[in-house]
């Protein structure tokens, strides 16, 4: 880890590496801007575009989830094995969403 740093500062009589936080703040701004965009979409698109709205919300939520897991939880820096061990089971959630939301629609009609 220490080899990544080439600038050091003195703190309480000890030498510590200079923080490298540029990427973290960049991710923060991306998350914030997406959340603000969600608000803009929620109150500017007319309500009869409901399905389009939901699609935009789902897409933006997945982008936010990707940034949180990839950058904040460092999943993108883990080995390919760990990366897919975590992501592959999510397929079951996608299936459950499809199955139960369709089922809910049928309960409403009958």
């Amino acid at each position, binding site marked *: 880890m220490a080899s990544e740093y080439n600038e050091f500062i003195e703190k309480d009589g000890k030498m510590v590496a200079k923080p490298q936080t540029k990427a973290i703040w960049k991710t923060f701004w991306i998350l914030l801007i997406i959340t603000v965009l969600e608000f803009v979409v929620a109150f500017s698109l007319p309500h009869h575009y409901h399905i389009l709205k939901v699609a935009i919300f789902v897409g933006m939520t997945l982008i936010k989830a990707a940034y949180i897991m990839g950058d904040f939880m460092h999943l993108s820096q883990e080995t390919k094995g760990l990366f897919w061990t975590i992501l592959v089971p999510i397929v079951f959630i996608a299936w459950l969403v499809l199955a139960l939301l369709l089922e809910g629609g049928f309960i*409403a009609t009958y």
Partner: protein
Amino acid sequence: MATHAAAEPKQLWLGGAEPMKASYGKLMMWIFLVSDAFTFSGLLIAYGLVRYSHPAFEGVPAEFVFSTEYWPVPEKVFEAVPFFHGYQLPLVFVGIMTFILIFSSVTMVLAVEAGHRNDKADVEKWMLWTILGGITFLGSQAWEWGHFITGTDKPTIVTDIINGVQVTKEVFGANLHVNQYGPQPFADFFFFITGFHGTHVTSGVILNIIIFFNVCMGLYERRGHYEMVEKVGLYWHFVDLVWVFVFTFFYLV
């Protein structure tokens, strides 16, 4: 050289190496988070099922009134902000809560970054900000629950059948028995989903406080690495991740 190459795979399977280059604790935290993701998905998808099995409100949003006949429009339910009584500010307070949680996630990742540099003072600083963010979020949620339970100024007229007799009554707020905002399951899911998430935030804050205490006592400095900060960090980011989904599927859609 040949003997060395033969000995290596044997060592791998005796537990001498870390599978997928992650320590045991980190790997198990990830596996736990996957299982926890399934629990939250179960709750949110059940919400979707029940929502779609109720009729939706078919009118113009401006003419929306609370009724148990159809599922409420969330932005009409969550439009109160502390100190702004009487103003209609749809989703503003929940937006503030989202910001608080995303920001505490940033301070957490800054604490992890400081841990990589073995910078004790910075880890302390950012852990403390993360704890403060978590407590602020919990306080906001307590206020929102209080408002949801107490209800709006005007009651909703609800028709109910008690012992076979049709009874009309005025309902303020919601609990697990009555709900002024819409069908009863709407209130039940509100309490269960945000409550289950709030429980996670609470335990996350407690874990963060324990780790913060250990950092201050110099435990991880003596150990030589701050991996424990990384592990609670994973949990804390997961709590933020779940909130991103709750925000979209409970409040926005």
